[in-house]
């Protein structure tokens, strides 16, 4: 049984060309394997490299070496168009911050990932309405751009967008941060449902109770930090 996400020997360096060409080694020998239906939490102190590893899985940061297989595609070596196809069909990412075109209605922001995989407008919007209702964004806000929303509302729009398409693999960066108890419960249910349909999930949760409830394993990224392990 092949894992959905399989990481081996991954290293990351940052070269600061405009600051004396300083080379900062932030990660070495990272290993991670996530099966379908499994949720793995990345843990470690702030700055240990949790977000860096997650960003490398998404192809947002370039790996210096090693392999990052997501559904058989090596993100560390793939062409941009292969990574784009992977992000469209297979690999979802709920970041901590919502980044959207200003003035686009919330409903369209949430429906967009579905339109990108060819779902028709009516079905995509129906799914978006269902999710926005679940995360308790009042209907009177759906036609407005989320850029003017509060932090917690933006986070919930981001989550609705991230769960709109049933991605086989999901990356979640602090999905329950800045949520009240009832919305936190909704998000944890969404994660459990995604696991139940077989999604492989990598998450960063500072919320320990949430982590204990939805995660099957923890991986301490400090083990991959040069000079700390």
């Amino acid at each position, binding site marked *: 049984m092949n894992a959905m996400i399989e990481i081996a020997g991954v290293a990351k360096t*940052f*070269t*600061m*060309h*405009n600051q004396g060409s300083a080379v900062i080694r932030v990660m070495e020998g990272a290993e991670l394997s996530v099966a379908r239906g499994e949720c793995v939490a990345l843990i470690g102190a702030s700055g240990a490299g949790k977000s860096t590893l997650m*960003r490398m899985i998404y*192809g*947002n*940061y*370039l790996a210096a070496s090693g392999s990052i297989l997501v559904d058989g595609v090596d993100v560390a070596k793939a062409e*941009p*168009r292969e*990574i*784009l196809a992977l992000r469209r069909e297979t690999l979802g990412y709920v970041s901590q911050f919502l*980044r959207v*075109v*200003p*003035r*686009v209605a919330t409903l369209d922001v949430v429906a967009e990932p579905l*339109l*990108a995989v060819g779902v028709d407008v009516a079905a995509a919007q129906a799914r978006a309405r269902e999710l926005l209702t679940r995360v308790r964004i009042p209907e009177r806000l759906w036609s407005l751009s989320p850029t003017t929303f509060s932090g917690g509302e933006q986070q919930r729009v981001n989550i609705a967008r991230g769960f709109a398409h049933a991605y086989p693999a999901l990356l979640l960066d602090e999905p329950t941060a800045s949520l009240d108890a009832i919305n936190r419960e909704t998000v944890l249910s969404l994660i459990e449902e995604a696991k139940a349909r077989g999604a492989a999930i990598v998450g960063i949760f500072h919320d320990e109770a949430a982590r204990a409830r939805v995660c099957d394993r923890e991986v301490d990224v400090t083990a991959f930090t040069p000079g700390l392990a």
Partner: protein
Amino acid sequence: MTTAIEIPSAVTPLLRVTDLNKFYGTRIGCADVSFDLYPGEVMGIVGESGSGKSTLLNCLAGHLAPDAGQVLFDTRAEGMRDTVTMSEPERRMLGRTDWAFVHQHARDGLRMNVSAGGNVGERLMAVGARHYGNIREVAVDWLGRVEINEDRVDDRPTAFSGGMQQRLQIARNLVTGPRLVFMDEPTGGLDVSVQARLLDLLRGLVREMGLSAIIVTHDLAVVRLLADRLMVMKDGHVVETGLTDQVLDDPQHAYTQLLVSSVLQV
């Protein structure tokens, strides 16, 4: 020169550029540029003034003749053809049918003394449409798609705001169903609120029509929202390429790092 050029690949790129060079005397316009653009992809080209990005765009679109290199385009009839060596009439035909060019200044891409409807309809006539009623109907439909009210169809672009002129230029360019759109600073010179609306419009059209696009801009925020891939140019050379968010969030080249770190935060 009508033989198709074979490319061994599962998916054929729409555009394949190899070792493109353009010199102005001894000065470099752009040098050794190579890339593939696949159907549905949007590529941004960024760099400061004089970096060669507009020279490159004009060479790709057939407005400038490169000094060396190939620009292969996957034509509907004959597959891959080098647009640099094809005849001028053939290239012009591509410019009317399969390509579109959105200029920074709408007045460079519009006929300012012709009505809005005429600006759109003219392109349809250029590819053979003759029935007046149909042409007007399509023109009105396209004005609607770029959010210009039907009651403005007989007004000239001179009576339009800058943002409306730009939207009209986009309608005029897309009405013939092109497959590749070249854009030179499409949101340059517009108010930020107008820019946002235009960006949203372009994103929707790119997705719905399955367009490929090459967008030249110096605005990193525009490429982040519009482009899948990014090419960074400096002094006529490509210094970095990659996924847009990867290049902007984890830039590898010294110049890209400088460019990204120089953006003022709002």
